[in-house]
């Protein structure tokens, strides 16, 4: 397991600077495929959307409660679809013929964005669509995903794979609502956080002391929590509805900032769980990259033997990181109950923990990157929700698939090759 450094990496040191960069066949093929995908998107707009388009799309930019009211944005549907289709066609053709090389991924992402805009304009033809409230929902829905990713980052930066995030979310959601119903929202939030920490303690004991395969532990945690909460929900909560009726955290408007058009309602008029997410992302980033604790945690995730040889206790570092990670996961679980509906439903986390895992990878194990990725997923959830309210000829079941499709596309295609911590998932044995 020890690290060897026999191979000097390419092009980073002067001696190896001569290593030439050439486009390999697979890279050229990838560039061409993404070009074709972009052209197909353009074709989709022209063939399916434009013939069915008419009238104007009206986009609301303010919500009813906003201090500054912006007037609605009215867009002629057919004309704007043509423009967007041409943009897509141009980007796709350029990518196919010449390639954007390093910026290919960015351009591909941009094309998806253009396509999504085209789709929204088409779907809104002759209807009203409130952009700001969609963005408000985006930030809200990205919260459990970003926190789930953060939970994963804390664990994996120390070298412990945590795929039990889903279970930690669900456990936090459940205990949050029960304790919240009994003692109020704040105590419920603490209970949710502790529940995540306790589940993480199980992960830490099995992974660090008993060196059980970490994937298996994660699966066990997920199944255990799903079964336990479903059982308790059907046996206890149904009979005692009082236990399943927690107060919901209200949105807190931050003075001044909350009055800025669009940005105000989106970022500065949310619940404390959303604010907590932003604060945690910032704090964990600082702790990981600027403090002694962070340096030691990352070193244990990269090369535990090196850390051990310098007197850093691998077990202690991993325990702490995993428990912190679990607490973040439990806190995230409270979003589902205390942050939104105030009641628990079986399996209500709906795979958000796994999407959080995808966001962690997409964000290259960096909290800020993961937040960005979570925003993409939150947007797709919010979009599918808002679109289902419009009168369009697409079954809502298909719209509900959007977040998961986005996950697959992101994980399979756009992620590229993010590098996980080198010792991720490897139990450490002293000898």
């Amino acid at each position, binding site marked *: 397991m020890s690290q060897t*450094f026999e191979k000097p990496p390419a092009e980073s040191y002067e001696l190896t600077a001569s290593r030439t960069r050439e486009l390999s066949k697979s890279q050229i093929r990838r560039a061409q495929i993404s070009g074709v995908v972009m052209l197909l998107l353009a074709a989709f707009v022209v063939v399916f959307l434009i013939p069915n388009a008419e009238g104007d799309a009206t986009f609301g930019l303010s919500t009813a409660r906003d201090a500054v009211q912006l007037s609605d944005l009215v867009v002629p549907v057919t004309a704007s679809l043509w423009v967007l289709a041409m943009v897509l066609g141009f980007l796709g053709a350029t990518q196919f013929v010449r390639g954007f090389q390093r910026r290919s991924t960015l351009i591909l992402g941009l094309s998806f964005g253009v396509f999504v805009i085209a789709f929204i304009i088409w779907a809104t033809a002759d209807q009203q669509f409130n952009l700001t409230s969609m963005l408000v929902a985006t930030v809200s829905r990205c919260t459990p995903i970003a926190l789930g990713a953060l939970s994963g980052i804390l664990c994996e930066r120390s070298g412990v794979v945590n795929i039990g995030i889903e279970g930690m979310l669900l456990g936090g959601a459940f205990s949050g609502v029960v304790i919240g119903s009994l003692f109020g929202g704040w105590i419920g939030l603490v209970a949710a956080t502790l529940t995540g920490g306790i589940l993480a303690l199980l992960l830490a004991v099995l992974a660090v002391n008993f060196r059980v395969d970490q994937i298996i532990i994660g699966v066990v945690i997920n199944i255990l929590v799903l079964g336990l909460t479903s059982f308790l929900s059907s046996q206890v909560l149904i009979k005692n509805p009082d236990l399943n009726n927690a107060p919901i955290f209200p949105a807190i408007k931050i003075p001044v900032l909350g009055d800025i058009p669009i940005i105000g309602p989106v970022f500065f008029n949310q619940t404390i769980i959303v604010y907590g997410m932003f604060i945690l992302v910032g704090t964990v980033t600082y702790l990981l990259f600027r403090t002694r604790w962070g340096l030691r945690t990352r070193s244990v995730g990269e090369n535990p033997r090196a850390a051990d040889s310098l007197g850093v206790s691998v077990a202690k570092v991993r325990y702490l990181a995993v428990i912190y990670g679990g607490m973040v996961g439990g806190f995230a679980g409270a979003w589902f109950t205390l942050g939104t509906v105030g009641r628990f439903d079986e399996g209500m986390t709906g795979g958000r923990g796994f999407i959080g895992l995808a966001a962690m990878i997409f964000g290259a194990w960096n909290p800020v990157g993961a937040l960005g990725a979570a925003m993409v997923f939150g947007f797709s959830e919010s979009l599918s929700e808002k679109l289902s309210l419009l009168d369009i000829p697409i079954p809502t079941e298909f719209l509900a698939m959007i977040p998961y499709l986005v996950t697959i596309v992101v994980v399979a295609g756009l992620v590229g090759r993010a590098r996980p911590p080198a010792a991720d998932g490897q139990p450490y044995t002293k000898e």
Partner: protein
Amino acid sequence: MELQLKGITKQFPGVLANDDVTLTARSGKVLALIGENGAGKSTLMNVLSGLYHPDAGEIIIDGQVQKFDDPGDAIKAGIGMVHQHFMLVPVFSVWENVVLGIEPTRAGGVLSRKEARREVKEISERFGLAVDPDVLVEDIPVGIQQRVEIIKVLLRGAKILVFDEPTAVLTPQEVEEFFGIVAELKGRGATIIFITHKLKEALAIADDITVLRGGKVVGHADPATATPEDLAAMMVGRDIELVVEKSEAEPGAGVLELADVTMLDDYGRALLKDISFSVRAGEIVGVAGIQGNGQTELVEAITGLLPISRGRITFEGKDITRYSPRDRHTAGIAHVPEDRNHMGMIGSFSVAENLVLDSYYAQPFSRGIRLQGDVIRDSAEALVEQFDVRPPIISNTGGALSGGNAQKMIVAREFSRDVPLVVCAQPTRGIDVGSIEYIHEQIVKKRDEGKAILIVSTELDEIFALSDRILVMYDGRIVAELKASEATPTEVGLYMAGRAA
């Protein structure tokens, strides 16, 4: 500081790794600890660094008996280890690696980068160990990484420095620089323990030599008077022929031909670049180079384990560029892979099974879907006998063999086929001197039978001992082709470092 070990004994399940080891290292002196792989050198050093707890014995520093519960205690006592596999985090910067565990911090545990950089700079200037504190460790060459390791232990106030096989991954020029560093440290009164199996280096740098065999101290030698042959005999316990006897090569027709072979990785970087050479019947071609300059990829390109992006590989006049590994194997290419445990054998299979891993599916070892157990056993018995695999018990698992005997088993499998080309990657890495001697003899014998042989080795001594022709690889290219009888190690070393290209 003076370090004494008294009666150190360490037992692992089934192995007595250290048996009553007693030795002394003095201030301002270099003690070389030599012994074969498995002689117990690394165990002893792990005991010294606090990673292992000895079952018996004492560690005494300046007359004080020490007790190490963990590496932290050993560091506090002034012992600094420079491990064979560097204990570095590749994605961390130099200063992050150096201060890990003793980080200078401001209030609240916030790292003080300025202070950390200053500490690294100070040590590096005081001891002449030039290094940039801000570069990532993965971006610097191995020789500089070693400096980082040395700075790490010096910053922790080490007075006793232990180097475990420090030259194994260095170029000949880096080895020179390293010896300079050791002389500098020695001049400042450091106690230095130098663990190695390279006899010439021990003789060049040490003030005392202690020899370990089978976990025991078997003798001491004075570098002023000892010869490599003496030391080898002490290490192995019998006389050893260090030079391979071989006559002038009589090359015949070309067997393997590579033309403009280029291999790109997934990111489009060239792992192999326009490689062209040939290997003829009856000659040994040695590929020299520092590890990681494309040798692994070259061997896998020839044996078909990795696809090439451009170029052509011809074997006995046939274009085999698109042949599968098995097609190449049946066409007549034998392959001793560089990593015997992962590629050369299956540790949980028996010796007999390992000996037919490449041919179990064909006559006479199989008939239809049925393996011919008795044929396999008879053949295995004969091979074990012929290639001196010890213990010669074919029902033992391959994993139970020592490194040298496992390698002999693999050589037995590959060399027993009568094929025109043998590709040997690192044929003697990490094995005992006796087995090295034996395998070298087999390789030369194969050549004298008129076979074409390609050797890839990072050991320059091995390249010179065996090769008739030497190719030097650097950065995925062949940067030099030399006649072995005319080349010097210095010259090859320069090519290996890419400086003469």
